[in-house]
C-alpha cells in the first residue's frame, strides 16, 4: 500500500499532464496552472526542510572547535541576510540588505570565479599537448578559438571564419548528438517512472 499509492498517483498524474501538454484548451490551461500551484507548495516544504537541515548541521558544528569558526560565520551571514531582508522595502537598492549583497557577496563570488583563469592557464599548459591525433585536433581547435580575441590584422578575418565554421558545423553536430541522446534518455526514464518500473524516487524502504 505504501508503495502502490505513490505509483498509481505518479501514473495518473504523469499521463494526465502528458495529455494536457498537447491539448490547447481553457480547461487544459486551468489544470496546468492548478498542478503548478501544487509544485510550488511542495517546493516550499522542501525549502523549509533545507533551512532546517542547514541550521541543524551548522549548530552541531559550533560545538566542534575546529569547525566552529566557519559554522559561526555561515550562521552569522545567514541570520544577517534574513533579518535585513524581512521587509519588502528593505530589498530595494540603498538598504543594508542590498549593500551587503553588492559589497560582500558579489565581490566574493566574482573573485572565486576569477581564480579559475589561473587554473585554466595552468591546466591548458599541461593538457594541450599534441600526444595523439585526437589531442592534436583538440589543441588546434582550442588554439583557433582562443586566437579570435587577439587582433592579427588580415589573419583575424580568416580566423573568425574558421571559428564560425567550428562552432556552426562540427561543434553543432556533436552537441546535437549529445542533446538527442540525453533527450531520448530522459523520455525513457520518464516512461519508466510513469509506468512504475523506476522506483528509486521513493527511496529504499
Amino acid at each position, binding site marked *: 500500500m505504501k508503495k502502490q499509492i505513490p505509483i498509481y498517483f505518479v501514473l495518473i498524474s504523469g499521463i494526465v499532464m502528458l495529455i494536457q*501538454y498537447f491539448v490547447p484548451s481553457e480547461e487544459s*490551461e486551468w489544470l*496546468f*496552472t492548478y498542478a*503548478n500551484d501544487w*509544485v*510550488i507548495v511542495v*517546493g516550499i516544504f522542501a525549502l523549509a526542510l533545507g533551512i532546517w537541515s542547514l541550521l541543524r548541521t551548522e549548530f552541531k558544528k559550533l560545538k566542534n572547535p575546529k569547525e566552529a569558526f566557519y559554522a559561526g560565520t555561515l550562521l552569522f551571514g545567514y541570520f544577517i541576510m534574513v533579518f535585513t531582508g524581512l521587509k*519588502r522595502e528593505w*530589498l*530595494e*537598492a*540603498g538598504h543594508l540588505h*542590498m549593500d551587503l*549583497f*553588492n559589497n560582500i*557577496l*558579489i565581490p*566574493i*563570488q*566574482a573573485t*572565486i*570565479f*576569477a581564480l579559475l*583563469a*589561473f587554473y*585554466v*592557464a*595552468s591546466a*591548458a*599548459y*599541461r593538457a*594541450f*599537448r*599534441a*600526444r595523439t591525433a585526437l589531442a592534436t585536433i583538440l*589543441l588546434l581547435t*582550442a*588554439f583557433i578559438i*582562443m*586566437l*579570435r*580575441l*587577439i*587582433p592579427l590584422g588580415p589573419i*583575424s*578575418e580568416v580566423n*573568425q571564419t574558421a571559428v*564560425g565554421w567550428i*562552432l*556552426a558545423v562540427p*561543434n*553543432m553536430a556533436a*552537441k*546535437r548528438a549529445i*542533446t538527442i541522446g540525453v533527450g531520448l534518455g530522459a523520455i525513457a526514464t520518464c516512461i519508466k517512472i510513469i509506468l512504475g518500473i523506476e522506483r528509486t524516487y521513493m527511496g529504499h524502504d
Partner: protein
Amino acid sequence: MIKENAVDFWDKVMNLDRRWVYLSIAIVVIIPTVIPFQVPVATTPEVKKVFNFINRMEAGDYFYLGIDYDPSALAELDPMAYAILNHAFSKDLKVVVGCLSQFGVAMAETRLAELSEKYDKKSGIDYCFLGYRPYPAIVILTMGVDFRVTFPLDYYGVPLDSLPVMQGIKNLMNVKGVVDITAGNVADFWITYGNGRFGFPVALGVTGVMSADYYQYLQSGQIFGLISGIKGAAEYEELSGFETTGLASIPYQTLTHAIILIFIVMSNIGYFVTRGRKKR
C-alpha cells in the same frame, strides 16, 4: 654545449612550476590597468541580430529581459544587461524584467534603479520588474499563459493589474520577444518551454564557456540571436554605443589568451624536443 643547454631549457619548460604560470597571468592582467589600450572588436552576425531586434522596435513596444545570472558571472553578463537596458530605455521601449535565478533579483534591482534614474523611467509606467520565482520551467510555462498567475504582484508589491505598463499585456505572447541573460540551464528552459511551447522569439546572452552549447539552436531558429561572453558584450556595446565594462574588459582577455597561447606553444615545442631526445 649549446645543444645541451637548449635541451636543459626545454626540460625545464616541461617541468615548469605552475606558480610561474600563475605569476604570468597576474602580470598580464595588471598590464592593461597600468597601460590602458584598446583592442578592435569584430561584430558577429549572432550579436547583430540581438542588436537589430532591440533597435528595430518602436517606442512603446514590449520585450522581456531575463536577468538570470549569479554574481560569479557578473563580469561577463552584467555588461550585456547594462547595454541592452541602456539601449531599450534610450528608445523608450517598455521592458518587463524577470529573474529565474535567486541572485539575479538583487542585481536586476540595482541596475534598474541606476538606469531608470539616468533615463527618468518609472517602475510600473515605463518598465515592470517582476522579481524572482523558483522553478524556471514552470514560471516560463505560466508566463506564457498569464504573467499574473506567477507574479500577481511586482517586485515592489504592487498588483500587476494596477500597473499602467501592464495594461493590455497578458502574457509572453504579447511581447515582441525575450532576451534572456543567463549563466545556467535557464537558457534551456527558455528554448524548450518558451520558444518550443509558445513560439515567441528568444535570444540568449550567455557566458563564454556556455556559448558552444547554444550554436545548435541558432542554426535551427530556436533562438534568433546569441551574445556570448565578454566578447559578445563588447560587440553589443560597439554596435549600440553604450559602453560599460564590456569593451574595457577586452584588453585583459586578449592578453590573458595571448599568454595562454604562448604557454601552449612552448609546452608543445618542449614536448617534441624532449620526446625526440628520449627516442634517441
